[in-house]
């Protein structure tokens, strides 16, 4: 993901609340501290498919915003 970001592609990591710190630390470690983290409700594991879809819906606006920013 860090490599993709360095190449200029639109990148983001989707993660749930408890994993944001790990995500931020990893982004710093890999030299892309501004890598966007899109937060979704926890948990992501052990949930039904309709709840997974709900998580995707949660992430979508932030993701679209990133794409729009990139297009400009």
């Amino acid at each position, binding site marked *: 993901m860090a490599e993709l970001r360095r190449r200029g592609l639109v990148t983001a990591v989707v993660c749930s609340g*408890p*994993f944001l*710190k*790990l995500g931020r*630390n*990893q982004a710093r*470690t890999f030299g892309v501290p501004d890598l966007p983290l899109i937060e979704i409700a926890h948990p992501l594991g052990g949930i039904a498919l309709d709840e997974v879809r709900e998580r995707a819906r949660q992430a979508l606006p932030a993701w679209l915003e990133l794409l729009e920013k990139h297009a400009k």
Partner: protein
Amino acid sequence: MSELGDLLKAPGASLEAEDDFEAVNELYRARGWGDGLPIVPPSAERVERMLAYCDRPWGEPVGRIPPRWGEATPLRLAANAVMAGCRPEYFPVVLHALEAMCEERFNFYGIQATTHPCAALVLVNGPIARELGINCGHNAFGPGWQANATIGRAVRLAMINIGGALPGSGDMATFGSPAKYTYCAAENEEASPWEPLHVELGFPREASTVTVFAAEAPHNVNDHESLSAEGVLTSIAGTIAIPGANNIYFDGEPLVVFGPEHAATVAREGYSKADVKKFFYERARLPLGKLSRENVERRIRVYPLYKGEFVHAGPEALVPIIKSPDGVYIAVVGGAGKHSAYVPTFGSSRPVTRALRRRDGEFARSIEDFRRR
């Protein structure tokens, strides 16, 4: 002091602190360096004494420890070994264990950051294990032995301090395990009826090795009743066949630790290690019905490992925990008593064995081979 003096001049390599046990411990606690227990302050003098048993350049990279991917060097590892309370002669074991863990197939990142409670088990074989007095007998996985307690702790401290495995930001274990404080033992080669692990893996008997496992704490198998090999092996196989451990889903080469008395009962009937492994492969199987319907539908039936075999299977179908006739490690550890143990693993990780080698690549015959001349 000149080599160490030069290394300590690098930015961030050292810090000034009051020469006081409590003050240093308070400083380390405030910075999140450590495992929560008091540490031995790693003064330059103590670190240099630790490095007396390191025949490599002290700044040479050993590997990178995730998730921070901090560079492990002898110098940094020695500081952690001091903090853990190691004697200097233990240091080569700590260094080789970390080197083994940095091999790709160990999946160090996964082990550090997972929600699973796996710890780093360091199993030591060969004459150096005896020379260092690493406990292989009574209470080998328990307290009371400096080598076991401090080698395992040094490995963990390196994982925390160099690798950044801090609870909730680098180490995401849901609740972790007491085995994450320290987890080190030697194989009881003298009490084993079989060839020791390192010989089985192709190393000369006179070599010494460390084998690292991403392991859960041992789960005991109490069997005072079985008088036959099949009896003992059936009890152990039944303990392996549990639904909660990762080994049902992954080919993660778990470990079976035989107590010497169980090992003797099994070997007396002519069972080799290969026979024992084959027994576990064939008999350590869990009926699909012991898993929740959701687990079967969402995991067993879609995993590449099982897809073909279990897609239409009923609740009585047997899922192998050991995925091939040699997909399990065997070691003999412990003292008297009719106990063995099953050590489940992380699954997405392979045990790694490394021989303790001198700088010139030769097998070390004694820990003194590492002493700086």
